[in-house]
């Protein structure tokens, strides 16, 4: 039990560190948000599951599992949503995409009047 928890915790912290490296290395905002969100979500979930396993001795008396489960569910719902809102705001601010970008269908659709232009006040 304890060993499983420790492995999960290590994987989780390693994922968080990957997210941080991604934050530092990626060329533009959009790619940073991408790597940051994915890796940190999985990292946090893995770490919480690991910690929940590590406390197996007193599952009966103290509420470890329930609180860790609440945290995991909460992060699974909120983290992608907040990143999505943030990235949408970044696009509305017209922060330029990186030079490596190959295609931008959203721009094409705004130009073709399929979508309204995001207002930047």
């Amino acid at each position, binding site marked *: 039990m*304890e060993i499983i928890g*420790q492995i999960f*915790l*290590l994987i*989780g*912290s*390693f994922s*968080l*560190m990957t*997210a*941080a*490296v991604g*934050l*530092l290395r990626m060329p533009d*905002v959009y790619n*940073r*948000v991408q790597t*940051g969100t994915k890796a*940190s*979500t999985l*990292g*946090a979930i893995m*770490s*919480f599951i690991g*910690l929940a396993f*590590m*406390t197996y001795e007193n599952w009966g008396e*103290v*509420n*470890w599992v329930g*609180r*860790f489960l*609440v*945290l995991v569910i*909460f*992060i699974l719902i*909120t*983290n992608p*949503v*907040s*990143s999505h*809102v*943030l*990235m*949408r*705001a*970044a696009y*509305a*601010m017209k*922060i330029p995409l990186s030079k490596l970008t190959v295609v931008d269908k959203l721009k094409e659709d705004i130009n073709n009047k399929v979508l309204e232009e*995001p*207002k*930047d*006040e």
Partner: protein
Amino acid sequence: MGNIVIYISITMLILTLLAGLIRFVKGPSIVDRVVGFDSMTITSLVMIGVIAYLSNRAIYLDVAVVYGLLSFLGVIIVAKYIQGGL
């Protein structure tokens, strides 16, 4: 054995916090700063979990839930603000 794993993971978490801080200070646009800050928040959530495990106090996790909720709201409010009006 158990303690070594905890120390390794705490080291990694601190490195993550540092990287988030660098992005927070450097980041050319406001969105970069918010992303760096968000990454720092999630790392601190895991930190709170580790601290709760080390001091054997499950009730610290309630604090983590509230902190996560506040960071979620904070990111949404900043995102709303930078695209004009709350």
